[in-house]
Structures are given as C-alpha cells and as structure tokens.
C-alpha cells in the first residue's frame, strides 16, 4: 500500500512538472499561465488560433549568428563534379563550393571558415527555411515559386545553364523527336522533371519517365540502360558524363530545353544578408572585369588609380562598412579565392575533366551575360 501511494504522489509531481514544461514557451510562465493554458486546451478543436505577429528573421540577424558561430554553414551538392563534390582528398570542391569560400572570405577574411553541408535536391529548401544552413549554393534554378512560396531569395545568377539531354552515342538519336516512345531518366523534385513534361508535351513526343530519388541512382539507372536518355542541366550532364564507365560513348544532344539560371539562395527576411551575398557575386564579376586576380591583387592594391577599382578594394570610401563587413572584404575575396574567371577555370575550365565553354557565362564586354552594377 505504502509504495503504491508513494508512486501516485511521484506520478502527480511528474505530471505537474510536465505541465510546467509544456507551458514554458518564451512568452508564458508562472502559475497563472498554467490555468490559462488549460482553459485554451479545452477549446482546441473549434477555435481558430489568434494570429501571432510575424517575427521577422530580422535585418542583420544572419550575419550576427554567423559571426558569433565563427563559421559559415553552406548547403552544397556532393554529387556533381565541377559544381559541388568531394574530391579525392576528401575536400569539398567545385564552382558552387568556391562561392561559399568567397563569402566566408568576405565575412571573416578567411576562406576556410566554412562548414559544408551536403543537401539533396529534395531537402535543400527545408534546410534553408529551417535555418540549418545560412545559404544554399547548390546548382539551384531561380524560379518564381522558389522566390515566393518556398520562402527564399535568389541572390544572383552565377551560372547560366539550360536543360539538356544525354544519350548513348551508338543509338544515333540526335533530336527530341527521335526519342518517341522512349524512356527518359530524370531526378525527382527538380525543375528538370517539370521542364521535361512541358517540353515533351509541346513537342508532341510521347515518352515514359523513369524517376529516381537522387543524381547517383538516376545515372546508375541510365548506366544500366534502364532508359534511352537522361536529362538534367547541361552542366550536370557534362559533369556526370566524366564519371560514367566510358564518357566518350555518350553524347549530349544539341537541344536546350529550358533556361536554367543557377545561383545561391538565402532566406526571406534578412536584407543585409541578401546584400552581402549578392555583392560577393558582383565582387567576383568585377574582379575579372578590372583584371584583378589573386596573383596581382597586392600589386593592384599598391598602385591602383582607377577610382572604381580603388573603391572595390577599400582604398576609397567605406563600401564594406555599409554591408556590415570590414572595408577589405572584396580584397579578401580576390586574394583568397580569386575572381570569377579564376573560379570558373579552376572548376570548369579547359584543363579540367568537366570542361564547359563559357558561353553566356562571359563578361558582358565579351558577349556574355555577366554584368555587375557599379561599386559606388
């Protein structure tokens, strides 16, 4: 009897503690609040909860968090050579990965203060929304829904891409029409999947999709000849072709099925963070435009006379301070990571297995689409 009574008492105390814990939201507390919460609980099924004021993520909140943490957390791909992958030494490398390094250089003056988090196509937006990552730099296409409903802001296009189609060379397929009745491998949760449906419907070509969960299983199925063709962004095709058993046995068709502007993405609600991310892209563009490279940046710093280059490097004005960074932020980017051309050539240049001609991704003065607003 006695032990049972002790147990009942214990259970009561435990439940009381649980009630307190359950009510311990940041805005409630104290005994009076418990009573209030209990009353509300009874009304749950019918009552619509009163609208809470929207707590803004806040101007400057992200930078403060990053500075306090001491590292930048960057959501990247780990499966696409040239853009985001883990190289033979176990180090993250690629075009999108180097952007993260540039951002870390701008913030900390140290390009190594980045923690890379590999995220899949399906989980990337949730990771960004929930604050698990500070920025998403993972060959992500800029689109309306992603800019609005998914709660993100695209910073700027860093790579102008288009969706392509790869087929085994010995099939003799050269156009989308040749794929009539065929099976096409595609990855789920991507704009690629939607574009494929759009383009094939517009062309009047009937096909069967074979849809897979990630890039590895999509291309594994293609390698097993489950499908006649595989589709993704052309950059992705070039990149994945390098890891197929015989890269020369596969051709990328001369068709572009969509516009795919790829670039980094930040959360809604912190304009300062958006500005920092965006002007980091422009610093990379302008470095190339002004001919400033990681090799000559110190010479330029000593002898620069052009006013805009001087403002970029922090010799004149206080542009860095306006972004909430130090005034040598752009100098650090160019010194530690290099300009756009250096980043491009390191990952996608002619000397790499993932060579992609620059095409649209040239400066506007060279007939491309890269155009940075003035630094002033």
């Amino acid at each position, binding site marked *: 009897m006695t032990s049972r009574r002790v147990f009942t008492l214990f259970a009561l105390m435990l439940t009381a503690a649980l009630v307190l814990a359950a009510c311990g939201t940041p805005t409630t507390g104290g005994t009076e609040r418990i009573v209030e919460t209990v009353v509300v609980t009874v009304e749950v099924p019918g009552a619509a909860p009163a609208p809470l004021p929207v707590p803004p993520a806040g101007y400057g909140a992200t930078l403060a968090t990053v500075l306090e943490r001491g590292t930048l957390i960057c959501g990247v791909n780990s499966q696409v050579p040239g853009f985001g992958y883990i190289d033979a030494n176990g180090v993250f490398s690629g075009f999108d990965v180097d952007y993260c390094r540039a951002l870390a250089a701008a913030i900390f003056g140290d390009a190594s203060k980045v923690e890379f988090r590999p995220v899949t196509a399906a989980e990337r937006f949730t990771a960004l929304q929930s604050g698990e990552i500070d920025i998403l730099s993972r060959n992500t296409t800029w689109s309306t829904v992603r800019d609005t409903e*998914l709660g993100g802001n695209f910073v700027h296009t860093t790579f102008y891409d288009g969706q392509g189609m790869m087929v085994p060379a010995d099939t003799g397929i050269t156009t989308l029409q040749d794929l009539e009745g065929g099976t096409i491998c595609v990855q789920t949760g991507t704009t690629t999947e939607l574009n494929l449906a759009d383009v094939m419907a517009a062309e009047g070509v009937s096909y069967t999709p074979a849809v897979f969960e990630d890039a590895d299983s999509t291309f594994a199925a293609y390698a097993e000849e*489950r499908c006649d063709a595989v589709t993704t962004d052309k950059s992705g095709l070039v990149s994945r072709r390098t890891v197929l058993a015989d890269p020369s046995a596969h051709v990328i068709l001369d068709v572009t099925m969509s516009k795919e502007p790829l670039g980094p993405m930040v959360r809604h609600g912190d304009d300062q963070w958006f500005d920092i991310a965006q002007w980091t892209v422009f610093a990379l563009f302008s470095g190339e435009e002004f001919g400033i490279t990681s090799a000559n940046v110190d010479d330029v710093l000593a002898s620069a006379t052009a006013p805009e280059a001087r403002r970029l490097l922090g010799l004149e004005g206080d542009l860095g301070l306006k972004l909430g960074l130090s005034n040598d932020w752009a100098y650090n980017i160019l010194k530690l990571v290099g300009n756009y051309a250096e980043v491009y050539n390191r990952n996608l240049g002619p000397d790499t297995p993932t060579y992609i001609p620059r095409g649209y991704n040239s400066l506007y003065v060279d007939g491309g689409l890269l155009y940075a607003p003035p630094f002033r």
Partner: protein
Amino acid sequence: MQSAETQTAAIPIWRDERYLNLLGQAIFAVVILAAGYYLYRNMEAGLRRQGTTLGFGFIQGTSGFDIAETLFEYSRSSTFWQAFQVGLLNTLLVSVVGILFSTILGVILGVARLAANPLVRWLATGYLELMRNLSLLVFLVFWYLGVFLKLPKIKEAVIWPGPTFLTNRGIAIPWGVPTETFPAYRLILALGVLAAILIAAALHARGRRTGKPPLTILWAGASFVVVVVLGWFALPAAPLAWDLPYPEGLRIAGGKIFTPEFMALVSGLVLYTAAFIGEVVRAGIQAVSRGQVEAARAIGLTGFQTLRLVIFPQALRVIIPPLTSQYLNLAKNSSLAIAIGYPDVFYVSNTILNQSGRAVEMITLVMLTYLLFSLITSAFMNWYNRRIQLVER
C-alpha cells in the same frame, strides 16, 4: 492494514485513493492535450515565419510532372490530387497482387515444410530460413538492379512463345483487348457467377441432408468455367481480341507491359512475405492436435481429405490473426518502392511535396492513407476471423 480499511469512510478527500486516481488521470489527459496543442502552435508559428500556412487548397493545382505507370488517364496538366490517386491505385495494385501470390506461395511452403518427403521438407525449410533472414530493402534492390535491369535490350530481347518479350524495359505479354461484343460477354460472366452460386448452394444443402462433405469449390468453379467457355463461343465474335506485343522503335508496343520496377517490387514482396506466411501456416497446422489426424485416419479419410476437412478448418482459426499482420506488413512494406523508382503513393506524394513545398500536408495525407488502408484490411480480416470462429461447436 485491518485498521486502515475500517477507517475508509473517515479518509479525507486528498488522501482518498479513488479521487487521487481520477485526478491523476485527468491531469495526464490535460498534459497530453496541452503538449499536442503546444506542438501544433509551435509548428504553425514556424510555418508563418516562413510565410506559409496550412491548407489543402494547393492540391487542385496543376501537377506539371509525368508519372511512368498510371492506371487511368494522367498527364502533366492533371492536378496534384489526381497524381496522388495514381500513386494510391499503384499501391493498391501492388498490395492486392502481392497478397494474392504470397498467400498461395506461403500455403504451399507451409505445407511443404511439414511434408513426409525429406527433400521437399528440407527445400522448404532452407527457403524459409534464407528469406526470413534477409533485409527486404536489399532484396528489392537485388531484384531490380541484379535481375530485371540485367535483362537484354529491346533489340536483343529474349522472346518466349506467346510471344512474351523479356527486356530491360519490362516484360511484355499478350493481352486481351475488349471488342464490340464485350458488353454482352459481361452478362455471360455474371451468369457464370450466378450458376456457380446456385450449384454451391445446392451442393451445400445436399451435403447437409446426406452427411457427405461436398467438393463445393471444385463443382462451383467447374460450372463457372463451363458457362464462360460456352458463352465465349456462342457470341458472334470473340469478346476479347489478342493484342500481341512487338518491338517498335525504342519501346515495345501492344500487349501488356510489366515494368522492371513493378516486377522487382512484386517479386521481392511476394517471395519475402511468403516465407513469413509459410511459418504462420506451419504453426497453424501444428496447432491441430495429433489426435484429430489419427481420428480422421481411423474413420478412413484419405490424406487429402484429412487436410481439407479436418486440419485446415481448425488451423485457419490459428492462422488468421497472424496472417492479417503479414498482409498489413506487405502493404506497408510496399512504400520501399521509393528505392527502386516505382510510383507508389509514398513516392508520388514525395514528388508532390517537393514540387509544391507542402511537407506537413503531404506527410499527413500519406500517414492517413496507410492508417486507413491498414484499418480496413484488419477490419475485413477480423470479420472473417469471427465468421470462421462461429463454426466451433
């Protein structure tokens, strides 16, 4: 102790265990509700911070993606809701086909495991032990990448008589296509069912009268077949035309094509679940006491008659409850389709989730679907269980 009980009436309310118990339960209920409400509010606040709210309005939006295997007309301009239904029907198809074949195979295995012939017994035992100790996911990937994708290309297809095409794009078999006399044939099918029911009722009544156990299923089935076959030839034109598969460009046209994903999923689920059903059947048979079999033999029943009239009816009572949970397992395990790209309800919902960004809604919908499916299956099996229990005297 004695003195404590005589004083019950005098115990004050805060020490009365009956009230304390009630109070404890009430507090517990409140805590659970409060915790649930707190979590719900937390989620809602989080969603609002992201600028989204809960709601199923999006489900009428255009899906924008294609699905490989659909049991009804579906295209990229259909709605998310229709895409969900496609997945739902695919899950139902796999579950029903899987349950059917795993039951047949499982019963054979269960009986074989108790066979007098040692070779049969050892084979069955070996199979059961192997299957029950494999991981289903590994087994599915093996069937997909190791078997069905290793079949030859369409141009080099293995052609079995029929013709049946075995290719890495699927297995194509001839299939009947309804002709203009098919509506009339539907009436004949109904007639066949009617005849079977009448014969079964008559045999049952006769069995009651004479005391001789009738072979009800055999004769009812035979009468159905006779009506259906006679009806086929009685019509001016055959109600179904053979649609033969043939290679056409990059695909196989005509016939019925079972995709590698479907084949791998069904093969994996059937072979795996059948092993468990085999064990359930064996346990059920062994639960029938030895004396029953000896008594059946003593009154001159043959081995098959003993099985059919004495062992199975009694074993069934033991078998049904664990068999139900095997059926539920098979249906729930079909969600592993995501690993091999078969568009079942979970896979399609995942795609919808990605394309619409509605995680909470879609996961809730999927959970409700599996819950409902399992509850319906077990309700049916419980009903059947009660029905056969009533036979007991």
